[in-house]
């Protein structure tokens, strides 16, 4: 099962995302921002990092990369896309997901082992979790505060499109403790926490992130 990971200039967690796909049993495929060729992958991960230095706004410049034009078209037809951290920011800037990620309330970059709860298991990226399951996954970002208009928040909540929520403490001032959301169709998911950094107990606080990658492989098999 070929899963792509896009490297933008300034992507940082691309190698970890490739590793996570491999550990989950998939075939990781590196994709480069400057080409619009999706290399026959069946799903794609937009990894964390500081694409284009996060200058202007996080994700604002990457959204215009050639690879994104292919991804946007594919996503509108149901192609599975997971955006992690900077990838989530890119998805919002691309309008594949609503809302925006803004400066953390505490004004600092925050790297911590964050408790979360899973709130939606109907997406191909979260189907391997149990509803309400508690996870501990690292967050590490300076602009992770999810903001959206009141109507958008009502829409997300009423349609059950909040995928992950911060538990115990809100680390950054996100509206409704939102840590991750999905589009209406469920194929596009964006999360601020880094599941690819919680796939081995040796290097992460848990292995709670692995199910994002096993979920997508399962979903693709079942299709």
């Amino acid at each position, binding site marked *: 099962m070929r899963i792509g990971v896009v490297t933008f200039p300034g992507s940082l967690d691309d190698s970890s995302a490739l590793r996570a796909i491999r550990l989950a049993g998939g075939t990781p495929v590196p994709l480069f921002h400057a080409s619009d060729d999706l290399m026959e992958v069946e799903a794609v991960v937009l990894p964390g990092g500081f694409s284009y230095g996060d200058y202007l706004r996080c994700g604002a410049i990457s959204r215009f990369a050639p690879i994104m034009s292919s991804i946007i078209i594919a996503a509108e037809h149901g192609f599975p896309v997971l955006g992690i951290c900077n990838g989530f920011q890119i998805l919002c800037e691309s309008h594949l997901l609503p809302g925006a990620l*803004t400066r953390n309330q505490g004004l600092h970059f925050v790297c911590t082992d964050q408790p979360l709860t899973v709130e939606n298991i109907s997406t191909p990226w979260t189907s391997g979790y149990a509803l309400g399951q508690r996870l501990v996954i690292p967050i590490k970002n300076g602009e992770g505060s999810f903001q959206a208009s009141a109507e958008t928040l009502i829409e997300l909540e009423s349609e059950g499109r909040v995928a992950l929520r911060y538990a115990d403490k809100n680390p950054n001032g996100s509206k409704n403790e939102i840590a991750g959301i999905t589009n209406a169709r469920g194929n596009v998911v964006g999360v601020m926490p880094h599941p690819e950094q919680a796939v081995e107990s040796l290097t992460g606080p848990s292995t709670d992130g692995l199910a994002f990658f096993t979920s997508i492989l399962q979903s693709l098999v079942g299709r």
Partner: protein
Amino acid sequence: MATIVVEVMLKPEILDPQGQAVAAALPRLGFTFAKAVRQGKCFEIEVDGTPSAEQLSDIERAAETLLSNPVIETYVVRVGA
């Protein structure tokens, strides 16, 4: 040569922790003038000669699509010196 200034501010309903931090710091330094502070970005764009109508409309479009994110921000374009 002219300078165009694009000011981008967070919408009033969006949390502005940077502005809040400044508002909190001012009185600690003895400055009491501010009722509220919001922090935004500004871009100084240099263009050749006086900007044409077409250029100005291009700048508007750039401000709307690239320089600001309409989900959370508003912008103003000013033609400077």
